[in-house]
């Protein structure tokens, strides 16, 4: 019987080696190693053997089984590897084809700059406020120390609406609303859409964006204002900027300033961008006029503050060198897709 087992094993081994695919080999496995396979048949015959013979035959049987299983596993792995290799070899893919599907859209450049400045101020403890686009004369003018016959009202060509209201000409009304809402001390900014009755051309718009800023506290000085403006502008332009204050007249501040930054094109040497002055006018600011604090319900004997107005539209145009302000509200995707 041992010889029979050995012969069977030898034959089976030869067939495993000869098998050209997994199926063929599987057939051999079932035939020889299966539950009803040839080796199992031998196993049944073992009972008829003597104890001695049984030990020897069992050994031969196990030996055959082990070597066949090993051969089988080895060959199976070879087949699997070959199959996987074959599959992978057929899976050449051109990964240089641009991906299909949705290309992300874009945020309007004004949104982008607003977000940047908002987070800058938020990190410095300023809260972000909104105000209505349609305002009362009180909030837009009177409360800001601009009485009805004040020449400053000439400077702002106002859109008047039926019902006695107007389209806010600046974000400054939010100063008053902010003071009334928050009370002192406070730090706030208010970005938003403002309107001026102006003919539209490449550098003038009737609809544009401003950002109002205000800080009210016990002692607020021009030196503090300078500090915030320098920090703000260095944040916006992502570099150290040189600023200067010069007198500017705005009824809601006293003293009032125009803030200039040193021209970043020429570094102050003088060039066409800065009209050869070395400086670019950037924003109006000042210490809050006591009358304005009063309008906001704050006692000017106890508190002072500074305020500023930043032209976001102008800032966007400066940053991206946009030559025509009308692009910003054109809704033209040829323009907007660039941002």
């Amino acid at each position, binding site marked *: 019987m041992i010889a029979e087992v050995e012969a069977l094993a030898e034959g089976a081994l030869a067939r495993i080696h000869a098998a050209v695919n997994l199926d063929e080999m599987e057939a051999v496995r079932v035939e020889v190693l299966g539950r009803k396979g040839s080796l199992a048949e031998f196993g049944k015959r073992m009972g008829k053997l003597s104890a001695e013979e049984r030990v020897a035959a069992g050994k031969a049987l196990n030996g055959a089984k082990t070597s066949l299983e090993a051969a089988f596993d080895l060959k199976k792995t070879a087949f699997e590897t070959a199959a996987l290799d074959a599959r992978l070899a057929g899976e050449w893919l051109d990964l240089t084809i641009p991906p299909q599907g*949705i290309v992300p*859209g874009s945020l309007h450049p004004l949104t982008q700059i607003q977000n940047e400045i908002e987070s800058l101020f938020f990190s410095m403890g300023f809260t972000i406020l909104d105000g209505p686009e349609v305002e009362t004369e009180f909030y837009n003018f009177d409360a800001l120390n601009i009485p009805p016959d004040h020449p400053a009202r000439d400077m702002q060509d106002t859109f008047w609406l039926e019902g006695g209201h107007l389209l806010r000409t600046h974000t400054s009304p939010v100063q008053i609303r902010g003071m009334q809402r928050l009370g002192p001390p406070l730090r706030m900014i208010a970005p938003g859409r403002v309107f001026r009755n102006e*003919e539209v051309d490449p550098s003038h718009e009737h609809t544009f964006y401003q950002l109002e800023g205000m800080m009210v506290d016990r002692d607020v000085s*021009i030196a503090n204002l300078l500090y915030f403006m320098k920090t703000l502008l260095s944040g916006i332009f992502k570099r150290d900027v040189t600023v200067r204050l010069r007198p500017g007249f705005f009824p809601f501040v006293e003293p009032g300033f125009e803030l200039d930054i040193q021209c970043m094109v020429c570094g102050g040497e003088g060039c066409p961008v800065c009209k050869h002055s070395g400086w670019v006018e950037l924003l109006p600011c000042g210490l809050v006029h006591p009358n304005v604090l009063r309008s906001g319900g704050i006692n000017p004997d106890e508190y002072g503050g500074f305020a500023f107005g930043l032209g976001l539209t102008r800032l966007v145009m400066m940053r991206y060198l946009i030559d025509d302000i009308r692009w910003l509200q054109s*809704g*033209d995707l040829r323009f907007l897709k660039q941002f």
Partner: protein
Amino acid sequence: MKFSYQWLSELVEDLDIDAKEVSRRITLHTAESEGVEVHGALLKGACPATVLTVEAIPNSHNVKAEVETELYGKKTLACGAPNCRAGLRTMYVPLGVKRVSGVDSDGMLASAAELGINSDHDGIIELEGELGLEADSIIEIDNKSLTHRPDLWGHYGMARELAAILDKPLVDPVSMELLPVGAPVQPVVIEEFGLCPRYSAQVFEGVTVGESPWWMQYRLGSIGLNSISNIVDVTNWVLAELPQPTHAFDADKIQGKIIVRRAKQGERLLALNGEEYELSADDLVIADEAGALAIAGVIGGKASAIGPDTKRIVFESANFNASAIRKTSSRLKLRTDASMRFEKAQDPHNTLRAIARAAELLEMVCPEIVAVGGPTDVCAELKPMPVIHLSLPWLYRKLGRELPKSQVIGILERLAFGVVDQGEALEVTVPSWRATKDVSIPDDLVEEIGRTVGYATIDPVAPAMPVVPPPVNEERRFYNQLRSVATQQGFHEVYNYSFLSEAQAAKLGVPVEAHIKVLNPIASDQSLMRTTLLHGVLKNFEDNLKNFDQFRFFEIGKEIHKQPEGLPKEVAHLAAGFYSSGGDGAEGLRELERLARAFAPTMRFQPAAEARPFEHPLRSVELYLDTMLLGRIFEFHPNWVEGRAAVLDLNLGPLACMLAGIPKKYQPIRRFPSSEFDLSVLTPARTFSSEVEKALRSSASNAVEQIQFVREFTLPDGQRSLSFRVTVANQERTLTQDEITAERDGMIAAIRHAGFELR
């Protein structure tokens, strides 16, 4: 406002910086300069010359002239002036050699206009004696930066600034000893001192009206004032210098008293500019006993104007109420050099100074002139000069730096403030020309001191403040989340205008009356405020479809709705558009539905009861969160937009609140397996899946975890087959087959009850 450097240097002693530096210093310390220009540029290098010979040039209107110049020797040149004749003394300008009419013309002979003296261009200038003029630099100051400074509308005021900045002595051009003395001659009555606090007038006789001398013409011309006549030029000189506006009447054309009164309603006046104005009782006039002579503070009348035959004049120097002048001037749309100054609130103390200065100038330009008596001076009781208590420690806290007290006092005194030193504080008296409107509180003095010492001397200082996280603006944060979701889905953000036209309103069928009207629109197509973002969306489609076959965009903006009273309601909306030039349009609508779900995953779509005229009749759906209607998705009717234009319009107000109100809550992961079963429902054509789903949900017990739409197809007879997968589960145990079957049977019953069949 233009300032002559020569004029300023006559008023600031020892002015040792050039015009460009003056311009820079004024910008840094006082008001914004727009730059420096040269006036009379040709005067540089020019010199007198005598014409020696003149020779006609054939076929040319020019002549060939030989001239003897005082600086450059003999020159030959071509000249086109009709008065170019031998023996004429004129001005030569070296310009280099140029071939003119066949002559090598070396330089030119100049007209008065070319030299910047006046507008006389009829011939070359005819010189008697020396010209005595030099090129000047003109510094242009932005008028807007002078609105609060009545005193800076004249050279004397600006000279005071410069003198204070540079710490140089100021020269007062006025000598009060030149003010005529004697009894007043011209009677004056002021009816309302509120409108005219002061009216001074001086009569002169022996007047000869003629041209003013070149130096006066040149100086006035350099700052943009045309020379009219010797007398009028004097009024302009005083205006540009002091800056008191004055007016000269022909005294023989005044009947009796001068009366300063309100105009009669409808009273008419033919003004000096040739226009006739109809006045109202809000306007102030200078009248005599016969009628109006002039519109006070704005313009003189033609009838009383001085002319070539004028022998006697009444020289008016008055002060008027700033707002009254401003109102009249803007109502008549007539802004004059006088009205511009009066509306800034001029100093009532300045009227007699102007007469003293005028008396001096009139004698220069009209030597035979004689003052008759002294000035009439009718004057309200003038307010005392305000006194401001200025605490020095407070001043330093405002500035953010300290200063020696002597420097503070020096600055104030150079700016003509009166100062009494009280130790820690100063009592500061405001000069009359700064007291009309400009300076009244200590904060105003912070500016005077800060700007004069220079803001550049203040170093930035971080404020001492508590570190507190500021409150978050949740609304803005929410909008930014939406923006970020939309851009991730391929939408580009647009900003549209808040205005629209009546035609645009009509196009979307919104009645004009529903909009807030702009009373003074720039153009008629911007006369209404938007009550929906859709007008902008429509325009975005129309504009962009010319350039793209497919595009996506969105806007977050405010609708503005009329309210019965108070401010209008501003409602934030998000509008998104998807455009495709071809296709069946489903893609865009589905994408917008996906976008809406990305904003709010529980958003429900419900067929709109009725399509609006501009919508595809079968493609509009309403968006709900719970039971709240929040928006709409629709396709534009092809008559409105060619191609496939899908729109999402979402009301953000309630959405923000509702999403904030839905707290996220953890559900424990189920430990027992769920089961699923599919239901395919047969419905009549055009049945919405939401109706079927509604039926399914109506019978669902709380074991139903999910009802999910799987697929649809349409049968040949038009019926729809809609398949749903239902997931059922229990937290505590595995559901039994009976329970699952019961759930399924319940749903089938509900489907049948709703009038559908199981396929």
